């Protein structure tokens, strides 16, 4: 009867089941998980002394107290020894982050594990090379030799910049410090190219230079601050859906007043400790707004601003704070740079413009009422009874990172926090919510390619999407751990060009002597490829992934990567920079290998080729890649961080993710407790010390002072405010043709491109198609209802989507899931990038919507179409 096979019983881990420490492979929160593994055929008993969990399974569990175990937390996998094992992957009760809580993503960690008889059987098992229209399996030796010869050949002939890449730089999802170190060492040193881009964007850049160049890294608070804050500001961050456990486990209890005792311990003597207030800045009425309203309707303020106007709104709140005298004079005068503060007052606060006039301009542009802006300022900065400063924790994410004027917007929010004294104290902070976890370690000091910062720091960096689309100097393109055919902005145009260029090379290879054949073997094939790259504008593409992703359809080589649990790895979470080990508990499918191993092999083969021709200089750059195991890679990367025998105050000068001195042995010992980066070695005791909260004593600048910045001038007239990529939609009749704003985002249900989720029945039924959300008012006008299929289109591209009618998007704005395995709504995003940072503005374009004929019966029958933002009973 059920829509898919269900279990009404799962096997019990016996007393002697092996236990491994790990962390969820998915979002920024990094919930701790424990893995129990035991041979198939064995089972523990119901009594606490008969099973590994010590739980009395003969009784019904108690809500919120007993370990949660669901059907999705069990699987049967192959161990490194080739034997079959039961695994149970359960949320760790002993993790300070999740305390036994878990999300719809993490709850499926076991279900998503590779199993040859399970949905994830679709994993890549062998290296594949393209021969004409097909992929053929080859050994690693063959595939590595081919790639090494092509990369070396291209680099020798056209220079290092002929090699481009788009690769993960983060933690979780099977990529951690180890893989990132290997990627960096390969491209920065062995190759030395500047043509780098990060998995979710067209360039190699920080998403938040606007904050970093102020002297604060974006990961500066600790998760406890969400329990201690007087006011939590979620700015362009839908935490309930994208950092689910952080929101319900730490923010909501604060809103409910359940953390008052914790506050009393951390607050000053006599300081009032009350249940938190929450401000959500988001054009949509997201679940993060409506859940908070269900908990504490009087303590939630929703600022529903017009798209892309965030920096003006942030500056307006700051202006109110200034006018009311609520700013933190002590912090500003002692710990910030007063010279640049003048610039901030003039350009950001616009003190030359009278307050009333300024506020009326802000109202006109942002669409937010003056009273609400003033209320937000009050909630952030109006002193509490007794004159105590309010503690505000501001958490922002893609709503503004991928907004208009990335640099200015991030700077405006980081500066609002500084003006109101909200860094380095319990219950304060201003930083990212995070998307995925982090694990950034790259050889910057020894890099052969000079890396740049924002326009104010030697940049902006080149746009590699444009480079591989249009510049014949791009010859080789590596895509690893990402699926840009779905995820890059303006993706319809992007994949059309990458397809054309890769096909040009493919065709050249098979047109040998006018026959359809190709040369055989890596040596001959590499020679032919190099010839093709010389004679055509072709592009040689290598894809490294766990699955044969959408982008792989145009690849020339596809390499199978090991995933989470198939190799030990390390990462940090975003909400407290907690470094932990994610241990290996199973074997990768087939011959799949960890990314670090793959990069190591390519570099080592290049070294052999250079040595064979006597080029010792280049061979030297390809040396040092012959790591034996993940622990060795971790250690190699750790050595790149600067000397961390520094005082507590000087943590501010350490790279955010510094883990120098930490070993696998240490991490296995501390388990779920982990250690918070940046890690210091105490100069007195020689012990490793974590950093709970950053910038307690000084900021991360040479003089320790926060640097201010005056944001760009702006006009309240949309024609003058927005860039040409948007204003073209206001002109020449386009305003009538494309009457809706379009914005996009994520859902709680599936992770990134759904590379795992697309195989899990629960997810496939729940989100069967890419979708849009339409306000009931617009739905009436368009004559569409939930469950209809529409085409959304504009001057950039087209997308097909399932319709959900709900009041999350404001009238006049269509919201869409950013991408889904059945289609990408990034077809609709423009090619705008911030000229200061090369960060795209994914979050706004203009569209038209047209209902398509008929429905999909399966969807109407099996998919819930109920509103996802109504929690009232």
């Amino acid at each position, binding site marked *: 009867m059920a829509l898919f*096979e269900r279990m009404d019983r799962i096997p019990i881990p016996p007393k002697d089941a092996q236990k491994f420490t790990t962390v969820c492979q998915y979002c920024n929160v990094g919930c701790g998980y424990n893995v129990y593994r035991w041979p198939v055929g064995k089972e523990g008993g119901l009594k606490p002394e008969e099973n590994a969990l010590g739980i009395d*399974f003969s009784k019904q569990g108690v809500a919120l107290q007993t370990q949660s175990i669901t*059907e999705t937390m*069990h699987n049967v996998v192959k161990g490194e020894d080739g034997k079959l094992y039961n695994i149970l992957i359960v949320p760790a009760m002993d993790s300070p982050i999740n305390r036994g809580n*878990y999300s*719809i993503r993490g*709850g499926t960690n076991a279900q998503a594990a590779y199993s040859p008889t399970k949905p994830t059987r679709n994993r890549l098992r062998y290296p594949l090379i393209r021969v004409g229209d097909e992929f053929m399996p080859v050994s690693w030796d063959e595939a590595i030799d081919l790639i090494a010869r092509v990369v070396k050949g291209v680099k020798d002939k056209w220079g290092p910049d002929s090699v481009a890449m788009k690769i993960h730089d983060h933690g979780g999802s099977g990529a951690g410090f180890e893989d990132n170190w290997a990627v960096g060492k390969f491209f920065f040193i062995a190759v030395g190219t500047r043509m780098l881009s990060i998995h979710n964007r067209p360039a190699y850049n920080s998403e938040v230079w606007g904050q970093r160049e102020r002297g604060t890294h974006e990961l500066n608070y600790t998760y406890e601050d969400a329990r201690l804050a007087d006011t939590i500001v979620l700015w362009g961050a839908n935490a309930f859906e994208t950092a689910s456990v952080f929101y*319900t486990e730490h923010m909501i209890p604060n809103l409910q007043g359940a953390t008052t005792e914790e506050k009393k311990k951390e607050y000053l003597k006599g300081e009032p400790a009350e249940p938190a207030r929450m401000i959500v800045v988001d054009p949509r009425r997201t679940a993060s707004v409506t859940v908070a309203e269900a908990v504490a309707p009087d303590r939630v303020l929703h600022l529903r601003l017009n798209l892309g106007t965030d920096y003006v709104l942030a500056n307006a709140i700051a202006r109110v704070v200034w006018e009311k005298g609520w700013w933190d004079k002590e912090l500003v005068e002692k710990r910030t740079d007063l010279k640049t503060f003048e610039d901030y007052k003039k350009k950001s606060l616009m003190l030359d413009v009278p307050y009333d006039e300024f506020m009326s301009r802000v109202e006109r542009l942002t669409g937010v009422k003056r009273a609400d802006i003033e209320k937000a300022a009050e909630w952030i900065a109006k002193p509490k009874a007794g004159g105590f400063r309010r503690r505000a924790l501001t958490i922002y994410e893609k709503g503004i990172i991928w907004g208009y004027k990335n640099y200015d917007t991030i700077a405006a929010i980081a500066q609002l926090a500084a003006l109101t004294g909200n860094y380095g104290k319990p219950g304060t902070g201003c930083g990212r919510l995070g998307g995925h976890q982090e694990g950034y370690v790259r050889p910057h000091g020894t890099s052969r390619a000079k890396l740049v910062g924002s326009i104010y720091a030697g940049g902006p960096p080149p746009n590699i999407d444009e480079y591989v689309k249009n510049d014949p100097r791009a010859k080789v393109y590596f895509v690893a751990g990402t699926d840009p055919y779905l995820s890059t902005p303006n993706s319809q145009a992007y994949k059309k060009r990458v397809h054309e260029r890769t096909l040009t090379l493919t065709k050249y290879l098979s047109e040998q002597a006018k026959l359809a054949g190709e040369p055989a073997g890596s040596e001959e094939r590499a020679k032919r490829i190099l010839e093709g790259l010389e004679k055509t504008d072709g592009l040689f593409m290598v894809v490294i992934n766990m699955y044969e992703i959408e982008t792989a359809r145009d690849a020339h080589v596809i390499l199978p990567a090991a995933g989470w649990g198939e190799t030990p790895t390390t990462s940090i979470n975003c909400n407290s920079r907690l470094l932990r080990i994610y241990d290996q508990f199973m074997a990768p499918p087939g011959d799949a290998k960890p990314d670090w191993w793959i990069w190591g092999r390519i570099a080592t083969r290049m070294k052999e080729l250079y040595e064979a021709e006597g080029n010792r200089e280049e061979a030297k750059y390809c040396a040092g890649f012959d790591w034996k195991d993940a622990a060795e890679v971790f250690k190699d990367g750790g050595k790149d961080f600067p000397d961390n025998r520094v005082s507590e105050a000087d943590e501010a000068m350490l790279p955010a993710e510094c883990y120098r001195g930490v070993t696998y042995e240490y991490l296995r010992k501390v388990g779920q407790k982990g250690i918070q980066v940046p890690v210091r070695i105490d100069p007195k005791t020689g012990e490793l010390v974590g950093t709970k909260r950053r910038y307690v004593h000084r900021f991360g600048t040479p003089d320790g002072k926060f640097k201010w910045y005056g944001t760009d001038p702006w006009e309240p007239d949309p024609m003058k405010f927005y860039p040409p990529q948007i204003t073209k939609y206001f002109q020449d009749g386009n305003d009538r043709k494309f009457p809706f704003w379009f914005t996009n985002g994520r859902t709680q249900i599936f992770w990134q491109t759904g590379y795992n989720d697309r195989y899990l029945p629960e997810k496939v039924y729940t989100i069967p198609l890419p979708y849009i959300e339409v306000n009931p008012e617009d739905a009436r006008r368009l004559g569409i209802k939930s469950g209809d299929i529409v085409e959304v289109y504009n001057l950039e591209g087209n997308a097909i989507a399932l319709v959900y009618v709900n009041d999350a998007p404001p009238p006049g704005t269509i919201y869409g899931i950013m991408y889904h395995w059945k289609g990408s709504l990034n077809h609709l995003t423009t090619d705008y990038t911030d000229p200061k940072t090369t960060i795209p503005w994914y979050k706004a374009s203009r569209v038209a919507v047209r209902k398509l004929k008929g429905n999909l019966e399966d969807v109407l029958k099996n998919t*819930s179409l109920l509103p996802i933002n109504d929690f009232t*009973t």
Partner: protein
Amino acid sequence: MFMTKISRRTFIGGSAAMGALLTSPELVKALTSQPYPRVKVANIRNLRVGEPVSFNYPDENSPAVLIKLGERAHGGVGPDGDIVAYSSLCTHMGCPVSYSKKRFVCACHYSMFDPAKNGQSYQGHASEWLPQIILRFEPRTGDIYAEGVEGLIWGRVRNVLKATKK
């Protein structure tokens, strides 16, 4: 005692004896099914659309809820195919779910489940759908019986906790 066979997602390791029987799917299925009681839970004459009826199933420590949805539902019984029943413990962390506006909401972490769509967890943290209770409708008497559960009830590793009669 009425037996319902529940199909399994996979053949999982139970006992050593079961491991030896893995080659015979039929036997594995019979061995791993749970012996569910058959319990009368309602009569159609007492049901009103949208008014949930609470009961316990398969034992007194497992709260469940039956609803006449007023529209045809997945696994629905009765003349209109609109009567469904579910375990009322949220599959996320075991808090009770409550019914309103055509869906179940959990007040602990705000997971929501659609009773017309097999208990689909369409919003919130719960990674598994709400276990649906297999119902049988007796047209002659109007009685509705619970006969089994599809999916694992929260707080258990097997739905039927009481010792099985041989």
